[in-house]
């Protein structure tokens, strides 16, 4: 069971929290309004933790482990961050933000511009990743994916459940909250990739166990691997949360790291699309008009006919048959398997 951030609102639903509105509104048990950064701390390489309090001074609504909040940045970008502080603290919410240089600028803005005393529009909490009761928990965290697991671990510990955590990251220095986790002793296994390689999922998860629930959060590759390991487990045993940014299909091999040549036949133009730039952006920069909307490979607005070349499909919309036909692609996320594509643009 995967949990993409489908419940995230689009900008329209946030109309009541216009910039500059000082008041906080509540809808049900949700907070919607301005929050002040009361503490900011670098907790690992490229990771800052923020403690947020309602600017109006009122207590924040309660939440359960696995919950996230929406953060609406001044640029209009909305990002979801898992709450990772103590569940009982209704004065402050803690989130941790990884700087994602290849993202759409949300995390970079937070890293570069948001200081203590600064304000943010936030909404939530919402929970797409609830912790269900179990006798035994197997937690697997990758990188910043540790955040939703922190309150889960605290709850499992308080409930007297049996639990263990396998926590991976690129390097030890990039892994947040290690001092907090080390307090749990042997239940926590820290495995930075530069020292240990890929996580030993087989060793950690073991055989299917009806009394155990698996909770995993991290990059798509890790979640895919955990899903593969748990394929034979009882339905519902595995619970994962994917990050929006990591949810787009990852590049296939090294090909995506290469620049590709894209000929726009109707326009009579040929572009070189470097790694890190979408075909859509390159086409737009070349001044060729093309419809687009979500830029995440979901909505299909940018669907374009492919005349030549093999597509590396990374969208969510096309069916397997449509992908195999190789005659259409969503240019906001998909690229080329080879070095060249010819599009009907």
């Amino acid at each position, binding site marked *: *069971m*995967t*949990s*993409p*951030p*489908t*419940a*995230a609102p*689009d*900008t*329209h639903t946030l109309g009541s929290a216009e910039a500059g509105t000082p008041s906080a509104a509540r809808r049900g048990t949700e907070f919607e309004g301005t929050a002040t950064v009361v503490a900011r701390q670098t907790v690992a390489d490229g990771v800052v933790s923020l403690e947020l309090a309602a600017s109006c001074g009122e207590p924040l609504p309660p939440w359960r482990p696995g919950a996230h909040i929406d953060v609406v940045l001044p640029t209009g970008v909305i990002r979801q961050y898992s709450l990772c502080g103590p569940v009982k603290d209704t004065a402050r919410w803690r989130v941790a933000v990884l700087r994602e240089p290849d993202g759409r600028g949300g995390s970079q803005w937070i890293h570069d511009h948001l200081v203590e005393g600064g304000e943010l529009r936030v909404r939530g909490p*919402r*929970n*797409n990743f*609830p912790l*269900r009761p179990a006798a035994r928990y197997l937690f697997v965290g990758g990188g910043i994916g540790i955040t939703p697991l922190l309150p889960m671990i605290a709850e499992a510990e308080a409930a007297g459940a049996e639990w263990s955590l396998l926590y991976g990251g690129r390097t030890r220095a990039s892994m947040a909250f290690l001092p907090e986790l080390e307090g749990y002793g042997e239940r926590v296994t820290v495995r930075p990739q530069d020292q240990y390689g890929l996580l030993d999922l087989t060793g950690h998860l073991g055989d299917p166990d009806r009394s155990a629930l698996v909770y995993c959060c991290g990059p798509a590759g890790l979640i895919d691997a955990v899903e593969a390991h748990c394929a034979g487990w009882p*339905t*519902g045993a595995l619970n994962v949360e994917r990050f929006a940014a990591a*949810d787009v299909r990852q590049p296939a091999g090294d090909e995506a790291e290469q620049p590709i040549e894209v000929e726009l036949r109707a326009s009579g133009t040929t572009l070189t699309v470097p790694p890190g730039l979408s075909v859509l952006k390159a086409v737009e920069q070349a001044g060729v008009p093309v*419809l*687009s*909307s*979500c830029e995440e490979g*979901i*909505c*299909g*607005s940018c669907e374009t006919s492919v005349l030549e070349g093999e597509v590396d499909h990374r969208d*969510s*919309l096309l*069916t*397997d*048959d449509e992908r195999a036909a190789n005659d259409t692609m969503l240019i906001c996320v998909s690229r080329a398997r080879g070095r060249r594509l010819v599009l009907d643009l």
Partner: protein
Amino acid sequence: MTLTQHVRNGWYLGAWSDEIGRTLKQRWITDLPVCFYRLPDQTVTAVEDRCPHRKYPLSLGHLDDDGTLQCDYHGYRFDGQGVCVGVAEQADKPKAALRRFPLVERDGAVWIWPGDPELADEGLLPDTSWLNDPNWTHVHGVVPLKARHLLLLENLLDLTHETFLHPTSIGNAAVAATPIDVTVDGDRVGFSRRMTGIEAPPFYEKSCGLTSPVDRWQDGDFYPPGIFVLNIRVAATGTEEPDGFHMKVLYGMTPGRGNETHDFYALGRDYLIDDQELTRFQHEQQLAVMQEDVDALEAQEIMYATDPGGTAESSIKSDLAALRGRRAVAKMLTREQQAGTARPRASA
């Protein structure tokens, strides 16, 4: 979403069997006026509801005991095959015939194929045997909807909206919080959502006598262009199949005239089938939920109708089944247009 033309090469629910008798019934389907009636042998027939003489609606005419349909403007008379058998004013029979639509009557439903009759394939219809199964009971009806068919289609293919639109009956946070798996099989789009260990929504609490936590499954299938079947299973958490409570909902999403849609529904269950009180409660709930949908879709229709090709839509992952449903309908329409069969054949 700008698609307001209607696919005609496909099955639509045209009427419930109990709606059609020896009186003439007009219903617009895919912008075609249709006149339904039964012949003396009880077979249902449907003809284009325009007299070939001066276009007067035949449904304003009358049906003789022998199954002859008479236009009550100038007296054209048509036999059970739709062939003109005479007119009051003259002895010679005018050369005229009515366009008749392929129909299938099965399990209490009348399915109509408004497009090319040669393409009408009964094999494309979903299994509706539960509407006629002694181990099941169901309620059915039709609700008018002033919104385009695709809005209803997307409503049904993204049940995430239950959380927000139906919070007092069938929706709660678990629906939106649980992602769906989407499958595509040819033109058909299916989705599956498995909610385990969730709070029981009020409708199921009352319908099944369940208390939280429960497991709730939704498995929806869209048979384009206009049929949707939802299989529901609710049970105390941990109950294995085939135990638990099963329900099915069939929706006939039948385009009417302009951007109006006939919202046909049937709600069935396989437990307490003799409990009339439960049947009444479920029917009331079904209609209340549908009214919430109708209100929302009609409000949405105005926004789409007044924003042609305007503001971009935002889409999220849970839209996937609905977006694929849209594509399936758009493809059918393209196929029809390319084959030149989108327009109905002229009457003979």
